[in-house]
């Protein structure tokens, strides 16, 4: 991008100002919100996922895993709700890639990319709207959690945990946006996301304590950022050690964003 290096005529400088970026991103956020209004079914996953997963895990595994936690189903509720919150960001992030990929298969992206806008705007708008969806899903998760017995004891901790999950979720979104740009169709984005995410989710401390896992798997879970996020959320919401997991999660979030955001924007910019 070397537009400013040329002849300095009055029209030569076409840098987009910060205000311009905000205006473009705002207009595109409006577009994505209108999509939801036009197609409310697109909110199904955000609404249903937390309900289905909370009920499923609490009532199917709650009793048996709860025992190993030294309690029963109630003990597992305290364990799984922060874990599901960690998982939420990821599931939402996966959807980003799929939706974005579909956008590319229509001519709309061509039009956007032939307009004088910062090309990051399209991505930022998408992420902003997904964050809103993520927060809605989190709110529903907490309501369902409380209904099945989750005790909110630490409100500041709860908000901190929600914030942390959102930060980590947004970092993951950059990965899926990149996949959405690079891969050929929505199905492969979904399949790819599933293949990568399933082992990461289950090979973590999201659903169950890791002590009973074989040594190699336990070692894997220890380095899995999802474990760090789940444990940090747990520590913040129900108590326990927080610091190390918190820093680890933040480090992963910053690192992923620092690497993947430029990659996503570059891939978007150069996609032919």
């Amino acid at each position, binding site marked *: 991008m*070397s537009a400013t290096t040329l002849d300095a005529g009055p029209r030569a400088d*076409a840098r987009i100002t910060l205000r311009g970026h905000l205006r473009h991103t705002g207009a595109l956020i409006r*577009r994505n919100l209108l999509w939801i209004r036009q197609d409310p079914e697109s909110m199904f996953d955000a609404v249903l996922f937390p309900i289905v997963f909370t009920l499923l895990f609490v009532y199917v595994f709650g009793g048996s895993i709860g025992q190993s936690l030294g309690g029963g189903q109630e003990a597992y509720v305290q364990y799984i709700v922060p874990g599901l919150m960690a998982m939420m960001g990821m599931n939402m992030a996966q959807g980003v890639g799929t939706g974005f990929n579909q956008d590319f298969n229509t001519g*709309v992206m*061509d*039009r956007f990319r032939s*307009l*004088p806008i910062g090309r990051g705007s399209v991505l930022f708008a998408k992420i902003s709207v997904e964050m809103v969806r993520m927060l809605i899903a989190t709110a529903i998760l907490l309501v369902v959690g409380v209904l099945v017995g989750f005790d909110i004891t630490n409100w500041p901790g709860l908000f901190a945990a929600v914030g942390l999950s959102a930060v980590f979720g947004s970092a993951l979104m950059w990965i899926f946006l990149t996949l959405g740009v690079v891969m050929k169709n929505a199905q492969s984005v979904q399949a790819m996301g599933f293949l990568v995410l399933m082992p990461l989710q289950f090979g973590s401390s999201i659903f169950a304590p890791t002590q009973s896992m074989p040594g190699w798997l336990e070692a894997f879970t220890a380095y899995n950022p999802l474990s760090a996020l789940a444990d940090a959320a747990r520590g913040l919401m129900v108590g326990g050690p927080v610091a190390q997991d918190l820093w680890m999660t933040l480090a992963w979030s910053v690192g992923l964003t620092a690497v993947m955001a430029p990659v996503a924007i570059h891939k978007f910019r*150069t996609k*032919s």
Partner: protein
Amino acid sequence: MTRIDNDLGGAGSAVTVRGLVKHYGATKALDGVDLDVREGTVMGVLGPNGAGKTTLVRILSTLLAPTSGHATVAGYDVVRQPRQLRRVIGLTGQYASVDEKLPGWENLYLIGRLLDLPRKEARARADELLERFSLTDAARRPAATYSGGMRRRLDLAASMIGRPAVLYLDEPTTGLDPRTRNEVWNEVKRLVGEGVTVLLTTQYMEEAEQLAGELTVVDRGKVIASGGIEELKARVGGRTLRIRPADPGQLRPLADALDGLGITGLAGTTVDAERGAVLVPVLSDEQLTAVVGAVTARDITLSSLTTELPSLDEVFLSLTGHRASAPQDAVPTENREEVAV
């Protein structure tokens, strides 16, 4: 053909293309294209599928970087000044590039905001363009519910939001029925009447004749002819006579007889067996009369006799001696390449 060989961005030239090359691996989508579109004129780019028309438009709208060569639009270089260039162009693609989930009005308002119009002005412009393209009644309906012609009109309206100096129409009527095609043509003619410079790609000689003043014929990434449309039409053989004998059994004898007379235009007589007609390109009224005379002399009863513009195939036959090449070098969309812009 003589071309003004002034350097890049010569006066009065809205689009200047010199030696433009685009390779996809071994495939040469563009293989050294030169092109000039004068301000306020319509340049038709005629060619079959895979000739490189869409690649050319994508390069000129900064969606694709050329492998080599130069191109400027309104004086801005496609590679070095993409931001400035995007401000002065409008693009209507082969596939209507509107957001189908959004209502027509929202589509236009969105583009207005992305083009930095203040809210009020973006609203007014959306209303104005909907009115002008006869879409006001459908303004609040999602574009997905629009008919093919309405969608193209919305697409055109979206391209006009920023009052572009140069408008690209990439096969604007491909896939439309004849009535809708006329509708789109009329809109384009109106825009041209207002002084917009248009680069039109098409596969139809008829479309080029309707809209363009000048024509560039491309094949396999190369320009094979260019000039005024009348001049090219004359070179191609002007018209095609479509003769339908009442008895389909007479098709072949009729064609042979006409061939034997040696009075046809450049492309030679062909038989359209599917529609039961013999196609005879003719260069002049005299030839036309001679052909009719020959048919009458053979006492063949006809069910219809019409003249039409030469088909793309005939254009190619007469210009190159071969038929329009099959789309063997169509750019595969799956195989999109990385290019920095």
